[in-house]
């Protein structure tokens, strides 16, 4: 039995699909619908217990994946109207070219149990989860037209938990639904963002009346760590914390959160193409998986590419007493931005630096617990320096940019170029 949507779409597609690009196909459909497509882990399923251990356990401890799926669906329905939103997770779907598919993925986590430098008996904790909201379009194609997959919006963001140490799953529960202690919870951030994407606007295409130019997008294409920095990280014992994944995800999230620019999350696109990812909601799962895989393997057409290089990791002793040692920590990154849409022209290249000082009790040094403190300190510095960069660029604040070692006389033109690029990428 054919339903209403299938009927409409099939009849329209059969006439137009050969000639029209995806946006036009979508536009031609009679009803714009939002399909809730699920919550996914951004890593292969067998790797979830290792790479997203806290997140997966936290989800289980707070009602399971189904409770989170329902919450996300309800938020979509209340934002765009229940009549416009279909829960694609509850029943298998036909591919709807006119529809927009929404999903939430967990891309990366970092949980650190750190000793209390104020001498408290129990540990403190820093938990960071990198997530992303993804909105995609899909067409199956037919004999004449190849199926197409297009990522329309990706919104990476992170959620932090800072406080007394609790079981990681308890922290994740808090980060998912409650005030995470530092900013919005994951669900609240998700609600906030979809609320900012007006229903009419998300279906906009450039040829439609009242619609401006479609937003371009950024992608963190490369993370380098220079040899000296690798050595310094190894000596501090924090290589696995200040990893390429952490740096890449921090950069992408900072750009998205500080400027609202559409930004591909750093790393795997696994959730889009795996059989247990996005394709799993469709009757024609295999075909969808093949289409998304082919699309993602093809040369990407991201408008702007970001490359980041960790250049220096410095920790030096500044003060010393019997029980405390004062350390200054410095991070230096190099950031390049390429306009990759036409001919990959470099539009931005600068080094940024950040420093902070702190005490380390010698008792913790003797207990061998410095590594966690350093990991926390350098992780926070990494996020802060990227936030300052994009905050400074977006707001033309030379006070902010100066505080990360940028000089106006040397970088003003580049900053302006980057601001223009960011403005073209905001929906």
């Amino acid at each position: 039995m054919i339903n209403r949507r299938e009927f409409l779409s099939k009849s329209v597609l059969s006439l137009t699909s050969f000639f029209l690009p995806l946006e036009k196909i979508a536009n031609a459909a009679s009803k714009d619908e939002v399909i809730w497509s699920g919550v996914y882990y951004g890593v292969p399923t067998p790797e979830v217990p290792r790479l997203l251990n806290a997140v997966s356990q936290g989800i289980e401890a707070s009602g399971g994946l189904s409770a989170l799926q329902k919450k996300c669906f309800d938020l979509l329905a209340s934002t765009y109207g229940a009549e416009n939103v279909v829960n694609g997770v509850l029943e298998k779907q036909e591919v709807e070219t006119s529809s927009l598919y929404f999903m939430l993925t967990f891309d990366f986590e970092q949980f650190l149990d750190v000793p209390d430098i104020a001498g408290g008996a129990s540990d403190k904790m820093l938990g960071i989860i990198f997530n992303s909201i993804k909105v995609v379009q899909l067409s199956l194609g037919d004999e004449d037209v190849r199926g197409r997959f297009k990522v329309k919006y990706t919104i990476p963001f992170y959620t932090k938990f800072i406080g007394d140490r609790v079981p990681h799953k308890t922290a994740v529960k808090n980060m998912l639904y409650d005030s995470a202690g530092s900013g919005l919870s994951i669900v609240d951030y998700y609600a906030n963002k979809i609320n900012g994407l007006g229903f009419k606007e998300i279906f906009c295409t450039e040829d439609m009346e009242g619609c401006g130019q479609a937003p371009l997008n950024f992608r963190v294409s490369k993370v380098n760590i220079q040899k000296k920095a690798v050595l310094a990280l190894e000596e501090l014992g924090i290589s696995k914390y200040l990893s390429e994944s952490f740096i890449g995800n921090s950069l992408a999230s900072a750009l998205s959160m500080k400027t609202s620019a559409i930004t591909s999350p750093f790393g795997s696109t696994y959730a889009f193409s795996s059989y247990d990812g996005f394709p799993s909601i469709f009757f024609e799962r295999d075909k969808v998986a093949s289409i998304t895989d082919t699309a993602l393997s093809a040369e990407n057409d991201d408008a702007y590419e970001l490359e980041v290089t960790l250049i220096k990791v410095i920790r030096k002793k500044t003060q010393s007493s019997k029980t405390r040692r004062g350390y200054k920590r410095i991070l230096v990154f190099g950031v390049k931005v390429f306009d990759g849409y036409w001919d990959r022209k470099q539009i931005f290249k600068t080094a940024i630096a950040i420093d902070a000082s702190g005490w380390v009790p010698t008792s913790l040094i003797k207990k061998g617990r410095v590594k966690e403190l350093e990991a926390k300190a350098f992780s926070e510095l990494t996020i802060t320096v990227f936030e300052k960069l994009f905050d400074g660029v977006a707001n033309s604040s030379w006070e902010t940019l100066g505080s990360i070692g940028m000089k106006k006389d040397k970088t003003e033109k580049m900053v302006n170029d980057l601001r223009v690029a960011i403005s073209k990428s905001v929906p």
Partner: protein
Amino acid sequence: MNKSIKIKLISATIAITIAAPASAFNFGNFAQKMQEQMSNMQQPGSQSQNGASNSKAMSVERAVELSCKTIYGAPFKSKQLPSSDVEVVSQYLKTPSNLDEILLVDFDKAYSGSFTGFTSNLIPQLDNKFAEQLAEGYVREPGVRMFAQVIHAANSADKTDETDNDMNFVAPSDRSVAKTLLAYLLLQYKDSGIVKDSNAAYQLLKKEDDRVKLASTMLARMHLYGDLAKQNFRAAFAHLSRGDGDVTKFKLNAKTYADVLVNPPKGTPQSNIDRLKQVAQSGKGLMDYVNKERKKAHGTAAYKEAQKLLAEGVKIDQITAEALGAGDKFADAKAKASLLIGEAKGEQDQLKYNVQVSEKTMAELEGVMNSGASMSEDSKKKFEEATQRRIKAHLKLNDLTPRIIATGMFQGAETAQLVNAYKRKSCSFLRRAKTFAKEAALKIEPPMSNEELADVTSDVSF
């Protein structure tokens, strides 16, 4: 003693007692308040109020320092180095970024065999004032900075040996002894993975053999045990004899004799052991030292004063514990002391009890300070007042031990031992209280300026 002299002495004592915290245990404006109080306690003839106060304050601090010399070590004045600390230490050590932590943590390591670990007991055996100060400085602050100072001294300290009028060798130069100290420190870190050349210590000691007794003794031990050098008994005993000296001073050498006599390393020839016995019994050796130790005198005269001061110590501990928000630690210490001593039946038991309470409380409170305790302004005031009283009691106890022994009272030795135990703990606590006060006033380094950060980013390539 006439009345005016007596008044002057009392005034001086009060000024000294109060001035010490103002300089050494200074929390913010407390020092200023102390200065104001002192303005009414000037000694006759002082040039200026402030000048006199400061000078007396320093003398009290010095008095505490001297009474605690074995614990504090004399202050070591850092020398200007030709390059950075890290560059200097790189002559002997690898320089990972956590080198400072390794040097701190592994300084407490103990070993078995020829080298058992660097302890404060070795310091007087260096028998050289400069090197002893250097070593005390290192004990106080094990780390890159002081290691660089030791290497610098081993490279460039005065190399003139002390000679008598006939130009005969009398004592080794500062540089020679510093080289020996450096060798011992290299041995301390032998298993830490940071010493570039595992043979460097041996080579340094070898150069100072027959000049620095501690160098000869360690070479003897190395050859005796065969763990850090080839086992060679002939060489070992030759080195051991070169390390001979006053057994009350060169204890490691005496201990090596004792070690061989009591528990000779496997393979030690019997003839060597027999010969050592003869040396030990000859009067200048080990037996003589042991016998001297046994002949320690008994005494009683200052017994009552000791009782009073040690009881005062317990009160001071209680106030300090309250200031640090650790009243429960004081109560615990009292309970533990009661368990250990039992019901106090007499004065001696009470003395033991008080010392037990104080030792335990001070140990606990040091832990509280080490954990980074913070205090309110009221608590700081209480802490300062308690510290003043502690200094006063400490200085009074300082000369008590010989007086107790001199009286010949039968509990004298035990009392002296209790007083000494208390004093040791008091030294350690006062030192900690002083650094704690300084730490409370220490400010963390401010962030770099925009210009400084711009400099950091200006010379990078990527």
